[in-house]
């Protein structure tokens, strides 16, 4: 998602550029699929299709369909809005913490990261008091720990805190 400067004139990004972007994104994926298929062989051997046969054609269809989608996107009226800037900002408020969370999990483990995510979300977006925020963000990961690790014996990623606690 690009972050164009907010022009005060428009209340939000147009549907047209977004649709074009999505079509190009899918087209790129199709092209990658085709390249990957070419690497493993796309022929029809004596014993039926090779590894890359299906993915190659699938990739080609993706490229063609996306080209069509791109073309259709050009016809969308420039006036049609994708969403308001304020709405985009709302979405970003989840995507950015989530991205940080995902990046933290391998280092801090899932429990500490989850506590941070829940706390941040409740405090920043939900505007809950500190007490409520702390209680829920600490109790919940502990609950998850007991459910998964202790009860169902499913090991989840752990970090320095867990090592220190000897869990």
């Amino acid at each position: 998602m690009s972050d164009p400067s907010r022009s005060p004139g428009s209340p939000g990004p147009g549907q047209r550029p977004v649709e074009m972007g999505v079509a190009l994104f899918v087209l790129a994926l199709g092209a990658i699929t085709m390249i990957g298929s070419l690497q493993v062989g796309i022929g029809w051997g004596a014993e039926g299709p090779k590894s890359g046969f299906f993915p190659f054609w699938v990739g080609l269809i993706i490229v063609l369909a996306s080209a069509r989608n791109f073309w259709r996107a050009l016809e969308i009226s420039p006036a049609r809005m994708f969403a308001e800037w304020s709405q985009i900002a709302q979405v970003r408020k989840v995507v950015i913490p989530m991205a940080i969370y995902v990046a933290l999990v391998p280092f801090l483990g899932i429990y500490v990261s989850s506590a941070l995510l829940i706390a941040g979300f409740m405090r920043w977006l939900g505007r809950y008091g500190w007490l409520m925020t702390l209680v829920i963000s600490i109790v919940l990961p502990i609950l998850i720990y007991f459910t998964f690790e202790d009860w169902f014996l499913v090991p989840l990623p752990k970090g320095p805190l867990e090592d220190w606690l000897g869990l």
Partner: protein
Amino acid sequence: MGVMSKRWRACAVVAATAMAAGSFASAANAWEPTRTVEFIVPAGTGGGADQMARVIQGIIAKHHLMKQTMVVINKAGGAGGEGFLDIKGAKGNPHKLVITLSNLFTTPMATGIPFSWKDMTPVSMMALDEFVLWVNAESPFKTTADYVNAIKSGPPGKYKMGGTGSKQEDQIITVALEKAVGQKLTYVPYKGGGEVAVQLVGKHVDSTVNNPIEGVAQWRAGALRPLCVFDGKPLPVTDKIAGDKSWADIPTCKSQGLDIEYLMLRGVFMPSGVPKEAVAYYVDLLKKVRETPEWAQLMHDGAFNTTTMSGDEYTKWVENEQKRHHELMKEAGFLATTN
């Protein structure tokens, strides 16, 4: 070899340090796991390796052989590469075990996934799994010779061999069989051994090289017929299984003119760089597992070859097996080009 000896030296140093540390403590210094032990299965649920891992887990739990719990985790992706890479990445973690099948050797060779058994510490060989040549009981082939002659006389690829996975043990045996007979077979890969057996019962393929445990239920039900076993000597189990036939009554393929021997390792490994005491602990634990009646039952039901090894003997065995697989894979043309 240079790398190896350095690695062993490193192990020895670690071990010596650990022992020195241990000698300060007056209490018994035997190593014991301090958290849940993960038992990785580099194959899907329901296969031979998975079953064995779950039986071991069950036995340990039932007989309280370990204070900590053991969990079985399947990591089947990339023909087991996912599981082996996990072990490779867990260097020095003494709370991780892996059970292997032949994909320990074949997967890196066939796919170029970067790992080898040298990235792991051998713990113990639990058993060797046998392979049997099976045909449908309604087929006209009563003996190995019948089937071999039919293959010889037919056009190339007329007879279809079903097997588990591609470029793995079943296909290696199939290629060896083709070579011995001098005629091509059509090899069709399926996901699991049970599925392969059912495909043979449904006559979608002409033969399989299922493990005994994968074929036994259908044999008892009179749907499959074993022709020969790919081992140097007949199977040890003499209980009557189907009619008056027992596992021991199946002739060796060698005696039937097919000079092919293949056994599959069911062994346990750990990550590299783990303390020697930890290895010793698991060697002992698995020894206790093998002494239980449940284990004896599994060995009996699956007509396993009950050879077991650990320590240097086992390491040497694995090394030989690695060389042998390299030869077999090379001959069959299964080596990855990226290697």
